[in-house]
């Protein structure tokens, strides 16, 4: 990084950059969540299933996020692992109205946690129990039970219910992630 970049960062003009991955089953709302964070003129109106991945940027209070919005379709899930190495945090999106596939989500989560790239790293995981407005949606507590989140011991995690269409709960989750990532970055500096 050039001299001006570090100067800008020191002055607080330029925000620190972090990479996060957005994963989850297909039709859970990953792209919609990212879309919500984008500036109004960059928003896209119709969301189509992602093929492969796409890179998006958005900002929170203190950090500039580069999000790898991964495709959730079954045949692309094995490609997630190509991007684990460089990410600083993970956003795992769950369709809380899809009780049937909760076990599939759990399997995918376990695969992710067991991946050698992530297994021994302390990286924060943010869970969005999305589609909380749906009539048969389960609560975030129920969700964490179904996914057995309490078993995750070596990584900080947080679950919050969300509605990506209105934006309810999204900022709460991202604030938590920002705080966690700041801690990590500070540790890195030391």
């Amino acid at each position, binding site marked *: 990084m050039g001299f001006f970049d570090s100067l800008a960062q020191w002055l607080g003009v330029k925000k620190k950059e972090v*990479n996060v991955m957005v994963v989850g089953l297909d039709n859970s709302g990953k792209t919609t969540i990212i879309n919500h964070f984008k500036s109004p003129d960059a928003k896209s109106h119709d969301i189509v299933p992602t*093929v*492969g*991945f*796409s890179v998006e940027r958005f900002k929170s209070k203190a950090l500039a996020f580069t999000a790898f*919005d991964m495709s959730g379709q079954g045949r692309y899930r094995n490609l997630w692992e190509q*991007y684990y190495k460089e990410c600083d945090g993970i956003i795992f999106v769950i369709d809380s109205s899809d009780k049937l596939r909760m076990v599939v989500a759990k399997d995918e989560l376990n695969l992710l946690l067991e991946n050698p790239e992530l297994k021994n790293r302390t990286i924060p995981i943010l869970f969005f129990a999305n589609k909380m407005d749906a009539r048969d949606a389960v609560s975030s507590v129920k969700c964490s039970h179904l996914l057995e989140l309490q078993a995750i011991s070596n990584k900080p995690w947080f679950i919050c219910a969300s509605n990506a269409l209105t934006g309810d709960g999204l900022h709460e989750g991202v604030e938590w992630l920002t705080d966690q990532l700041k801690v990590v970055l500070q540790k890195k500096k030391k």
Partner: protein
Amino acid sequence: MLSLKRDKKEEEDGTGNPFNNLEKSTVLQEARTFNETPINPRKCGHILTKVLYIINQGEPIGQTEATEAFFAMTKLFQSKDPILRRLVYLGIKEMSKIAQDVIIVTSSLMKDMTGKEDQFRGPAIRALCSVTDHSMLQSIERYMKQAIVDKVPAVSSAALVSALHLGKGSHEVIKRWVNEAQEAVNSDNVMVQFHALGLLYHIRKTDKLAVNKLVSKFSKHTLKSPYAYCLLIRIAAKLIEEEDAGSDSPMFDFIESCLRHKSEMVIYEAAHAIVQLKNTTAKDLAPAVSVLQLFCSSPKPTLRFAAVRTLNKVAIKHPAAVTACNLDLENLITDVNRSIATLAITTLLKTGNESSVDRLMKQISTFMSEISDEFKIVVVQAIRSLCAKFPRKHNVLMTFLAQMLRDEGGFDYKKEIVDCIITTIEENAEAKEAGLAHLCEFIEDCEHTVLATKILHLLGREGPRTPTPSKYIRFIYNRVILENAAVRAAAVSAIAKFGAHCDDLLNSCVVLLERCQLDSDDEVRDRATFYVNVLKQQQKALSSAYILNGLQVSVVGLERALHQYTLEPSEVPFDLKSVPLAAQPISDQRVRDVPGENPSSKPSQDKVAASRQDVYQEQLAQVPELANLGALFKSSSPVEVTESETEYYIQCVKHTFSNYIVFQFDCTNTLNDQILEKVTVEMEPADGFEVTKYIPCPSLAYNKPGTTYTLVRLPSEPTQVTGTFACTLKFLVKDCDPQTGEPDEDGYDDEYVLEDVEVSVADHVQKVMKPNFAASWEEVGPENELEDTYALSTMNTLEEAIKNIIQYIGLQPCERSDKVPEGKSSHTLYLAGVFRGGHDALVRAKLALDSSGVTMQLTVRSTDPHVSEVLATAVA
């Protein structure tokens, strides 16, 4: 910053290509930098350029390595740097065929293609189309359609061209984009219009009627783009060609009207199309030629070049039309652009008359040293055709060729000259002495081994028959002293031929060869020893068989036979007659892709020397029922036994063995709603022939060639060799779905009548070249000689008679006796070959032309009395 410094340094010490000496593994290692965050666009861009360079140098990259690099590269989508992004697009396109899971970038590319950055959109579309497979195409179809009608020309063009590429695999999907393409044709942008027209044509090109409509529609409605016009002219010209239409076709009117277009490009394209057409009269040509003539005096060198090149190409076909431009071409001889000048001169040489040759040759020699080898070859080719046209001018041309031989030049150029001299020598007996002298001089200082050996071989063949053979021996023996082993060996063989042919030189040749026995190279010594011993026997027959005639069998066949012999040792000595003979003429040795062949035998086709017959031999050996028929004697060339464009397309190849004939039928089913099973060809044999076995083709799907065989035993009576066979194709038809190829459960028997297949004498003989016919004639001797006189009343010229005799008897004409010198009324034709079973067969036909036709005295000599009889009756 660091990389900047390094770049500077590289530039300073590495003159020339900074990417020289890149190592693949290092570059791929460096590509891991892409994974780092934050991204350094400058550095990553540099590395990506290196990766692209490596790929484009043709270095093979493994799938795993490529996939790793590809995924690393996908991370560069984080950066917004425009240069880096465009490099990424290039990288995706290059790696889309070698890496796995390239589909991962689809969404990222779709985002860019619909995004706001116009400069990303076109390249993103192209990259997207390279990663999309046919199953995924539907998901991007909507965006592609939008892009085609986009108002930004670059985007529209990119989408149209990508659609063209996609059309190769998924024609059905692209067909649906026709409306968008129609709209794009109306674009104001010249390139978009051109590409859109290209796509429209591509979609409709299988439908002749639709293409016709397309051309007539756009030829009326004025297109803006000259490129589109050029394309339209090409399509129209192709249509005229396909329909065999003359100048009355509306297509021709359109092309003709383009001669008055305002763009030079279109005018040239139209003129070019007209002069290339087949059925044109002088009147049709005139406007096109006058346009080209005008271009010849254009101030633009490109136009002059294009015009003169086109004229050069058609000079042979339309000499009269091109002669009209002679004056302009004369002016171009002194053109500063040497390429134009060369083409102008060679065109004039092609059309010129005998008197202008001297002047043109003088003119061309003034700048031969200034033009590149490629154009020198054009000049040599022009001279070659001149030699054929004006045999009397050979001394001017020969001197010129000799001059060119002495000049600097690459291998291709020298080879062309040598070939030209050799053909001239063969065509024109008067030029022989001079030509040989030039070649002798050339090998004194020739750096190309291939050419030196070729010339030595020629000297060995032609030298002994000249009035003073002794003068060539000095040149040849010099080679033995001065050259490398391959040339020395060729020289030894050449000397031996002089010894075998000229009795008065025999002793001197033996002395020279004895000296060669002390050579340092094995091959040279072996040859010398062999020749000395043969020559010392002083027997004409021996010399003729082992020195003058050389090896007649096919090398690949010999190798296989010897290998077989070593695998199964036996008391019987190896018999050279069991080896298939080399097919004559040699130009017929192209390897054909034989349908219905097992993949296991494929590699044998790649052998350079494998002749057509060797391929067949291999193929027949794969069929267990045909494996033990013995060695294949001869395979005929394929004959069509169906009309073209009928339901089934069938070719027949006749394979002759010592006691059997195998008829191989290569069948293609051209109906897409039928599958044929148990396909056989039933044959109604002629007298004495007996059909012993049918080997059916189990299944014949649409457009997939299959092969069925019919085995026929030859009559026991040795003189009965010819016959006509009526053939019927029998099969079981099953209807099937044209799309899926899924057949119905049950079918029905059907048959199809084929044309008759004939077995003639020519199927029983193999052509063999005897360079010294007289010696071979004496060698066989008169025991089984038969002589008869025929009156060939239907023939009016000697050439015609000779052509027919060769066709009936199927033997190889020797000593160029198939060419009749002009103005002679009598001629002797020498034919040589081997009859089935390995019997030598020689035919001498003395022909005389008189008012009632051609009279022929036919003399046949052979090692077997029956063979003589068969051959003597072949013409009758």
